[in-house]
């Protein structure tokens, strides 16, 4: 009975109800869509940097992260690598030696990041082979390098040219070497593309005079969310007086910070949107109550209790809110699913703009179910709070005034 009354009342003013439903639906749609794009870009950023470069977690010698020099390298030991590889949720672990070098070709010189890798493990870890755009991939006993495509074009060199590398090695020894460029790799993030050099692990250890030493073991965890669990586990298994174990959040504080900043930005946007929509909803509720005061008065005069009236009107407001929320989700869901599988790639000017910020020119989307539940509940909560107004108005209604019209 109450439901019947509420339902029919909603459709008394069809146009107003539809406008309100549409406004709520739009709020849910827009905020879900925005949040999906946001989370999608975070997932992508984490993937690009963590998944394809640092790994989700790393083991170093204690102190290395504060002072990234070869002096904080550690002895490569099979047991250690084995322990890491056997750890639950760890999919791949790759030993690395990482440092800097000046790279030159003819008249051009550039500071670069040198990564000594186990080519096979590294490929499992970061799918490095798939980044190859020219030449061939490294073999473990090669005396050759893979370099970033951006670096190659800066140095104006190509596959087959010989790169000269100069650096300081372990314990300050001089390091110098000449390596044929075996292949070019292309990375979406400009920072890496413009300065990366890959050497086979053994060659890199020889170059830096750091025989059988590593600076880190990078690993991929089955799911990003399991990173902290793996880190904690390794902390209990390895000697933390000798080693430090860090997850990607610790390895990439700038990334975490920029994600947090962006997240807050999105939050503010959504609050503004919600506020605007809230005023719209409130306006509707206000009209719903004010134009029906006489009717409420009659209903109470003939024997309807105040709280029964409140139940009916609350149902009306919540029904409108739920309908709007469901509509918003129904509209955004297929769109988000579509864009999840077909992210937007920017081209031309936009692409250049993105790249100048060190970002990949792509707008990916996330399908995290939290997007819908989060936006849906937010809008429902707002509507429920606003629905208190009609309840309050009925609470204050004086019958004798209401029926005087």
């Amino acid at each position, binding site marked *: 009975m109450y439901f019947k009354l509420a339902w029919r009342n909603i459709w*008394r003013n069809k146009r107003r109800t539809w406008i309100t439903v549409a406004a709520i639906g739009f709020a849910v749609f827009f905020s879900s869509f925005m949040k999906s794009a946001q989370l999608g870009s975070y997932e992508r950023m984490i993937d690009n940097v963590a998944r394809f470069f640092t790994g989700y977690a790393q083991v170093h010698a204690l102190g290395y992260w504060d002072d990234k020099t070869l002096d904080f390298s550690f002895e490569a030991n099979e047991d250690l690598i084995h322990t890491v590889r056997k750890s639950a949720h760890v999919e791949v672990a790759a030993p690395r030696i990482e440092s800097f070098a000046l790279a030159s070709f003819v008249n051009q010189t550039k500071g670069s990041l040198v990564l000594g890798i186990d080519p096979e493990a590294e490929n499992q870890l970061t799918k490095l082979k798939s980044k190859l755009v020219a030449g061939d991939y490294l073999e473990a006993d090669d005396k050759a390098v893979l370099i970033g495509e951006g670096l190659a074009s800066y140095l104006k060199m190509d596959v087959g040219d010989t790169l000269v590398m100069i650096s300081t090695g372990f314990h300050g020894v001089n390091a110098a070497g000449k390596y044929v460029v075996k292949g070019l790799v292309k990375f979406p993030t400009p920072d890496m593309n413009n300065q990366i050099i890959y050497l086979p692990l053994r060659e890199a250890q020889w170059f830096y005079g750091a025989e059988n030493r590593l600076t880190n073991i990078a690993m991929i965890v089955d799911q990003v969310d399991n990173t902290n669990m793996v880190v904690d586990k390794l902390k209990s298994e390895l000697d933390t007086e000798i080693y430090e174990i860090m997850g990607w959040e610790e390895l990439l504080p700038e990334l975490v910070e920029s994600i947090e900043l962006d997240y807050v930005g999105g939050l503010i946007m959504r609050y503004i949107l919600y506020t605007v929509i809230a005023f719209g909803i409130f306006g509707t509720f206000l009209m719903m109550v004010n134009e029906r005061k006489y*009717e409420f008065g009659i209903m*109470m005069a003939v*024997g309807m209790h105040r709280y029964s009236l409140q139940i009916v009107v609350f149902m009306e407001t919540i029904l409108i809110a739920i309908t709007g929320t469901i509509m918003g989700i129904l509209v955004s869901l297929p769109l988000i699913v579509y864009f999840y599988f077909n992210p937007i790639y920017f081209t031309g000017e936009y692409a250049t703009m993105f790249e100048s910020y060190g970002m990949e020119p792509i707008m990916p989307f996330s399908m995290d179910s939290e997007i819908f539940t989060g936006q849906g509940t937010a809008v429902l909560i707002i509507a429920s709070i606003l629905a208190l107004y009609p309840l309050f108005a009925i609470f204050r209604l004086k019958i*004798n005034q209401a029926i005087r019209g």
Partner: protein
Amino acid sequence: MKVIKANQLTKVYNESKIPVTALSGVDIEISEGEFTAIVGPSGSGKSTLLNIIGGLDNPTSGYIEVGGLDISTLSENQLIDFRMNNIGFVFQSYNLIPVLTAKENVTFILLLQKKSKQEMNARAEELLNKVGLGDRMNNRPNELSGGQQQRVAVARALASKPKFILADEPTANLDSVSTANLLDLMAEMNATEKATFVFSTHDQRVIDKARRVITLEDGKIKSDEIKS
């Protein structure tokens, strides 16, 4: 038997800057089964008096007893139940719940009284047939004429078999034919449903049909005439 007793009823509205005295020192006694008109020009206090009798408003001072009960002692919820069980209201216009059909408007009261479905349907159909709207039961108010709406309102007012029907200018928005019909209907219901009718009006044709006429002027009783 006196079923409504009012003693020195006074009502002052203090809502605006200047207080308005709507009733001052009204004494009334109404017996069971009366068919009484409260008459007076607009603003004379008719609605205020009916609202106080119906428990929709409180007097500023004075005593009011309805059906042997001092209604000023009732809480809001008790008052609502008292109205539901004892009083049927007919207002000037827009009496009905617009989203409900004629029949649903009548059963609404019975639903509030938690009557059984069969009882509700039977009573609603009986009353709507009595008021001559047996064929309009499933129409909504906006599909009915003003006269038909008032007839439904009378049927609704009678649904719970109340002791009193209070009708505040029930014919104010009706043409003369509908007015005459409604009054005949009310008189008939007064006889068959054994309810006491008190209605306000300033329409001479309505006044002519009343058996007792109480005239108000400026919130005071000017005359009280029982027709033979």
